[in-house]
């Protein structure tokens, strides 16, 4: 199951804020920030249970996160990942020479990966360290 032509937004959520202050390397942070929230109708099309891992793919990368239904809907066609290491794997680093990367509004597609492995913050960031 997959969805194309979505738009990815990122931003603060209170759970993510609490989790990062409580410890960026904790499991709580994974539960709070390694999630992708969908519009209710969009989620039905994915045909999976809440919490099933999904792979979010943009032009700038891909990341495995848990899926869930948005409390801040309806927002058809829009998916949301709280700010943090997971979101930053797929955001647009281009700043158009103004200094600030484009963290919001990337074109994205999503694939359900039933046995997908969602990495925790340290393991995820470690993948960026080239030996």
């Amino acid at each position: 199951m997959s969805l194309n032509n979505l738009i990815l937004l990122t931003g603060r959520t209170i759970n993510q804020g609490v989790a990062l202050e409580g410890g960026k390397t904790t499991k709580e942070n994974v539960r709070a920030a390694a999630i992708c929230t969908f519009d209710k109708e969009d989620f039905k099309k994915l045909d999976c249970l809440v919490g099933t891992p999904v792979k979010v793919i943009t032009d700038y990368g891909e990341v495995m996160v848990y899926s869930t239904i948005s409390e801040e809907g309806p927002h058809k066609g829009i998916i949301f990942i709280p700010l943090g290491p997971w979101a930053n794997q797929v955001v647009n680093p281009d700043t158009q020479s103004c200094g600030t990367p484009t963290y919001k509004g990337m074109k994205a597609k999503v694939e359900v990966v039933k046995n997908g492995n969602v990495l925790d913050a340290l393991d995820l960031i470690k993948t960026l360290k080239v030996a």
Partner: protein
Amino acid sequence: MVERKLRTISDVICPFCGTLCDDLEVDVDIKEETIVEIRNGCQIGTKKFFSSNPSGHRYTKPRIKENDSFKEVSWDEAFDKAAEILISAKRPLLYGFSSTECEAQSKGVELAELLGGILDNTASVCHGPSLLAIQDVGAPMATLGDFKNRADLVIFWGSNPVHAHPRHLGRYSEFVRGYFRKDGRNDRFIVVVDPRNTHTAQIADLFIQIKPSEDYELLNAIRAMVRGVELDEKEISGVPMEKIKELVNILKTCNFGVIFFGMGLTQSLAHHRNIDAAISLVRELNDHTKFLLMPMRGHYNVTGANIVFAWNTGYAYSIDFSKGYPRYNPGEFSSVDLLMRDEIDASLIVASDPASNFPAASVKNLFKHPLISIEPHETPTSANADINFPAAIAGIECEGTAYRMDSVPIRLRKVKDAPGKCLSDKEILEKLIEKIKEKKGE
């Protein structure tokens, strides 16, 4: 149960978000020197206080990475190694500073000048575009008390304070009773413009659901309509014309309006041009009524970082000292652009976590070069650093000054001692400067 002896500190300032709430009460266990209870704080602020207690992810001693594992060392050894890395670097980056107090930020400027490096703070990835727009067209602002006492129209544009600034609504903008707004929420009309029906939007009087990344067109249309221009469009940015007309009417007929704007404008395409349009709209609305705006700053002292950098160097962020004098150009000297072009050869990160918060491609380049972190907790940045300096948490374990989002300076309080051998950010930077001067023979 053993009776605990507690020390209660009142009027504590919360060092989490730019709202800088100043009414917290903290109970500290006298014997253990740990925080036991916090009253009045929001969820996030409360958690920040609790996380200052010793835990598995709190650093207490300086560490150096050797063969992929950390070794605890003396302060002297850590300073020595850090000074060597920074002196031999031709283009060191000093980044962070927004979650520490102003005295430490000032030391950061001194160090950057000494090294001929690049100095940047986290505004570079959040409200930097707001600063750019303000430099282009100015900004009509006021302090938060003005909004609390006078505003009868409050607009949140691309901002979700329920999640990001939890007590903002209760203290300054929505529910609070003000001098001229005695009935609190009932005396205010709340508008939210956002692509998602956020929790802030769910308690608003008018919610305008806009297409992502098309804010500029809507602001542009509203500006023209405020000037009385008839537009020949049916909908703009996904918002039907009738709804925009309704909004324009609300804007023009309020007594005192304010736009609070957030990352929704600065981090989507068009960045500072969005803010430019919002500021211009506010300027034009002052032909009809009183209108102001305010950026919703994230880190509690990012405003302070901008102000301290500006009074030291003339510029608020993205400053290059490589020629010995400060030069400023976001896009050229801003951290993410520098990293994307792989233009640095060492970095010092103060009270920040760019490994989590920068786009992945730029983090890859950050990790290519020696990385020194001054940070109280284990984060993806500090875990991948070559040298860790354990810092006391400003506002909890040491005093200092911080600027609220409306540029009001507030003195932070110390509520407890830092665990282990932690020093404050300011002391660490001071000693590092001393060491570098000594090594350079100055």
